[in-house]
């Protein structure tokens, strides 16, 4: 159904949209740029890999487990690290550095886990090609159909949760104005915990999806964290939907854009793949320093209309 480059791009874009959405969610609730997203995503992939290699069966049935484990990691990070710092009203940089420390610990645990798996169970966890275990659907890899569905489902669920439930409403209230929300009796603690649960889960799920289009390594998340942040920044770091959209755009642009560039310029450009999302991010930041969500669309349209009229008259 899809050509292979588009199939890979869809999987990659879905994974980036999940992770970038998680980063945006954590930033707008707790002001934390979560570096630990790298470790959480890698852990999500390894949970799927471990369960698949021991129990077999369908790959996708272990994705919920990844999500749960990511949530657990998020809860640990919130209770152990983020909560005391938020209570102390630490600066953005301090919050960022604390998650970096957590990420390094996660990275070392992942590396040790890999050593353990390869020594005791004779597995090869350092270079995993998960797409080999994928099945075919409509004459294309199942991942390219299922992962966008996963991303859209998560987006829909998140939207329903935020707009239709009472807790979601209180969460939005806390995002809008934390002081006013806590004055009207909303427990901001619970809101922050919930955002770590969702954010961590999305990170792990994103990592699990990510492994379907690229080689799974212990440093997979670490190498991709810049792209995740690029997606979140493109989205504007103001609404979760913006983050999800930004991640999707960055991911798709990287795959599809580099494909067309390679056809036009030559295959040597494939090595500079990661320059594309950075270029998009840099241009967006230069034109709109607050990202896509920060653009005032109505104002923009109005000014375009006005410019057109000016040209006519």
């Amino acid at each position, binding site marked *: 159904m899809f050509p292979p480059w588009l199939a890979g791009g869809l999987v990659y874009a879905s994974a980036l949209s999940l992770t970038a959405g998680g980063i945006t969610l954590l930033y707008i609730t707790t002001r934390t740029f979560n570096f630990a997203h790298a470790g959480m995503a890698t852990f999500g992939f390894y949970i799927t890999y471990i369960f698949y290699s021991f129990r077999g069966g369908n790959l996708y049935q272990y994705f919920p487990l990844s999500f749960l484990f990511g949530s657990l990691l998020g809860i640990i990070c919130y209770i152990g690290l983020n909560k005391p710092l938020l209570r102390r009203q630490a600066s953005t*940089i301090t919050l960022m550095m604390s998650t970096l420390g957590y990420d390094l610990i996660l990275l070392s645990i992942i590396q*040790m886990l890999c050593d353990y798996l390869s020594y005791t169970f004779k597995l090869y966890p350092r270079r995993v090609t998960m797409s080999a275990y994928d099945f075919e659907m409509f004459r294309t890899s199942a991942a390219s159909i299922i992962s966008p569905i996963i991303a859209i489902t998560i987006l829909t669920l998140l939207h329903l949760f935020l707009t239709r439930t009472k807790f979601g409403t209180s969460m939005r209230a806390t995002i809008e104005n934390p002081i006013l929300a806590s004055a009207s009796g909303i427990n901001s603690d619970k809101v922050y915990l919930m955002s770590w649960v969702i954010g961590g889960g999305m990170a792990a799920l994103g990592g699990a999806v990510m492994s379907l289009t690229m080689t799974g390594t212990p440093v997979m998340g670490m190498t991709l964290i810049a792209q995740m942040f690029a997606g979140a920044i493109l989205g504007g770091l103001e609404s979760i939907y913006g983050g999800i959209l930004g991640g999707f755009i960055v991911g798709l642009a990287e795959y599809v854009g580099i494909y067309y560039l390679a056809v036009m310029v030559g295959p040597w450009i494939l090595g500079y793949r990661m320059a594309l999302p950075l270029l998009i991010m840099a241009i967006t930041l230069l034109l709109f320093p607050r990202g896509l969500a920060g653009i005032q669309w109505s104002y923009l349209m109005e000014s375009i209309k006005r410019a057109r009229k000016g040209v006519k008259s």
Partner: protein
Amino acid sequence: MRNIGDVLKQNLMKREVIISLVILLVLTYLAISYGLSIILSTLIIFSIFSIVTLSLNLEVGHTGISQFGRVISVIAGAFVVGAIPGRILAFLYGLPFGLEYADDAVNYKVVPFIHKILEKNIALALGFFLFCLVLAGLSGALIGWLTSRPAIRLREAYLGISLLAFGDFFMWVGHNWEPLVGGTTAVFIPDPFRIVWGYRIQAVAFTFLAIAVLVYLFIERITKSPFGRTLKMLRDSPLVSRVYGKNIVKIRTQSLVIGSAIAAIGGALYVIYTGTCTAIGFTRLTWTFWPWAYMMLGGIGSNIGMVLGVLVLTVLRTLIILYRKSVFGFLLLWGIDPIWLEYTLLGLVIIFIVLFMPYGLVPEKAETVLPSGRIKAILESVRKQSSRTPEN
């Protein structure tokens, strides 16, 4: 006049002195049990990272720029030293110097020729070394100026993330563009320390340590000057500095240019020490996050703290590497390599500092314009005057 006992007691109880003494003891023990070479290599790594961390502290601790792209300027220094001085020598002596210089099949033949020339000519070796440093400093200043362009526009977190991403980008450029520094293969750096062959590591250690001391004195001089106080004012309140008529854009640019130039010298020293330049070795983990950890341990904003932070963590890393078999050998039973404990240590250190010691080992001291004795005297006289005049 205070007697000597009081002075000693006051100074010995300081945290930095105690830590330095403990580290000195550890180092002496290591020297006795493992020989001097391990001390010297630790000293070299310590000097290089001190330079990088001091420059980071100038930008983060003194100016308040969220510099998450330290690796950019380190890469600038390292790649320039990998690419240009060797080519110039190759050109002068009629060896292949064009794009093919960085090709590994050519490079491993060309560099030994240059080594033979450098071995004999002490003036050339010295000039080569200084030229490398100057070149690295210039390219670092250029990169610092380039990164200062977005630094004026973006808010702190956005800036940090952008710089981080661009650090990765530069690494990939070096990794993919072979004529620069050999791409996936390493390019060899002509070694100016060949002239003291046999005592190379000693010479390198003392030279680098001297450069680190010079950088420390330079940064100490800058931060104690009116310019340094302006930086701190800018960090604490950009509004106030604007009120006082300071040009924020200009000050930030100056700080970034100076800091980047110094960091680039650190990168140049690293590639000269290792003798090779591999693009993939300049990861953001080693050259951005490690210096951040050193800086946080030392205490953001204090210069002597940087040196102490680097010293403590470098020695701890060395200890982990040395004792990974004997102390953490139980991990090998499950097939786990204890080398990963390095990351655990780094993570734990960062978390511990953030949670329990937010000001680091040596908290930043307030810079005063006058010596503290004179300020006390002035305060005293003001108090006397105010007590003499009746309040109404």
